């Protein structure tokens, strides 16, 4: 059984269809890269996978012990976070906020947060304030929070936005490393440079899937050629 299986899924708001015809299978250990231009329905698909938007038709199934609440989500950066006075420790630990009904974090939650910070090499920043960190460090902290929330599957929405090339390469390397250690990854981006991020499968969206297959096939496909050549890249 796959972790996520989409069958002919259509999604939209208020009766307007934004995405349709999505067939998708995500198995444990996969690294799926969802690429597409802005307005191509990537964000809607993300909301659908997270269960925040119900499919108009078709179905999204979760299996292998995964529930839609069990997805570690890294949303796009918000304006609110830019100068937010929070310690790295507080942010990473907040990944546990939805895990239990208890008002306080348990010892196990704290251990989990520590372990994740160590895994991503940010435990030395633990007492630092989130707003003082570099863009790359901030993304690493949010990645740690997602991983604290759920360790089977990560859903990353444009994780490299606003990072300089060095920090971007480093972040992609970390994500690939996580994937090698068994974490299933779905990454969403409009950036073709991110293709070097060691993804295994690619889904190219423009309202409907234009391409769905392995990375090698994608790099040889017409869809990719057209995107690179810019012939109908801005449609």
């Amino acid at each position: 059984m796959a972790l996520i299986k989409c069958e002919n899924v259509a999604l939209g708001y208020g009766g307007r269809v934004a995405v349709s015809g999505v067939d998708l299978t995500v198995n444990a250990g996969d690294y799926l890269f969802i690429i597409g231009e802005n307005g191509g329905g990537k964000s809607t698909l993300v909301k659908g996978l997270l269960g925040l938007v119900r499919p108009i038709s078709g179905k999204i199934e979760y299996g292998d012990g995964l529930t839609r609440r069990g997805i570690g989500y890294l949303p796009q950066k918000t304006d609110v976070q830019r100068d937010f006075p929070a310690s790295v420790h507080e942010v990473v630990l907040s990944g546990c906020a939805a895990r239990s009904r208890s008002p306080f974090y348990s010892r196990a939650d704290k251990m989990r947060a520590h372990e994740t910070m160590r895994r991503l090499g940010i435990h030395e920043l633990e007492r630092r304030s989130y707003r003082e960190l570099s863009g790359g460090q901030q993304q690493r902290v949010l990645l740690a929070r997602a991983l604290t929330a759920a360790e089977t599957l990560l859903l990353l929405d444009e994780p490299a936005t606003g990072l300089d090339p060095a920090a971007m390469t480093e972040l992609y390397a970390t994500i690939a490393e996580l994937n090698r250690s068994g974490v299933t990854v779905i990454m969403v981006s409009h950036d073709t440079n991110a293709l070097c991020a060691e993804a295994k499968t690619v889904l190219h969206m423009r309202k409907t899937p234009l391409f769905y297959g392995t990375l090698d096939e994608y790099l040889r496909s017409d869809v990719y050629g057209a995107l690179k050549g810019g012939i109908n890249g801005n449609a």
Partner: protein
Amino acid sequence: MLELLSDPTLSRILLRAAVVGALVSLAASMLGVTMVLRRMSMIGDGLAHAGFGALAVATLLGAGDMDTEISIPIVMAASLLLFYISESGILGGDAAIAVVSTAMMTVGVLIFSFTTGYTADMCSSLFGSASILTITDGDLYLSIALAAVVAAVFIIFYTRIFAVTFDEKFCAAAGVRVWFYKMITAALISLTVVVGMKMIGSLMISALIVFPALSAMRFCKSFRSVLIAASTISVVGFLLGFFMSCELSMPAGASVVAVDLLIYVIISASTAIFGIRQKLRAVDMHMSNSIENSDK
């Protein structure tokens, strides 16, 4: 002041007003931290204006001493309406606030002009009571209940309040009932505004929500420390302003806000100076390091 305190009746009135104000300040500052961080400071201001209209309705109904109790449900309704409008995107967030707050202000002014006229009643709801005699035992019990509820909410829901304030999208995906925490904040903010309005005035009550949070954010590095610092600054600022107003016969509202403003300016200036000194020191270190290196 000392003569005031020597009279048992007067000192009881004074003490009652001080306790009400300190508790309202405490509640306002804690809620203020989440409001300021979520870029919703103007909502506090909008609600305060709505409170003015609500108080006018209460006066129209001839509530007398029960005016606070009558305005609470009206302001709560207005606050839920404001949150709904700004969330649903029917109007832009800031436009929604402008519409609701000016509409309620207008209702208030019209009601006052048809009933009591432009009197002390209206003036005190706008700028805060000139006399602390208007603070009743009912206000005292309300403020105790308010502070207790706000403190309890922050203790019980602390982890989720932090998570929701920091990142709504993440929380929604993880299954936290984001709307529930927003509604709680909206309801408590409106309670705070109504209870505090009498003393501070509806035009200035949002200063109690915004200033302590801003001051604390200047120098605190974690969410927990911001909450603690903001509530301390708020209560201390209130007591200073309140006793200053008694001593110098100034209106309590304006005095308290003036002290809060002063605290903010002092903290901003000192953190700025501290920041510059740290930077200079870092440059110094760098220079001396490079000199040492070139010596080698």
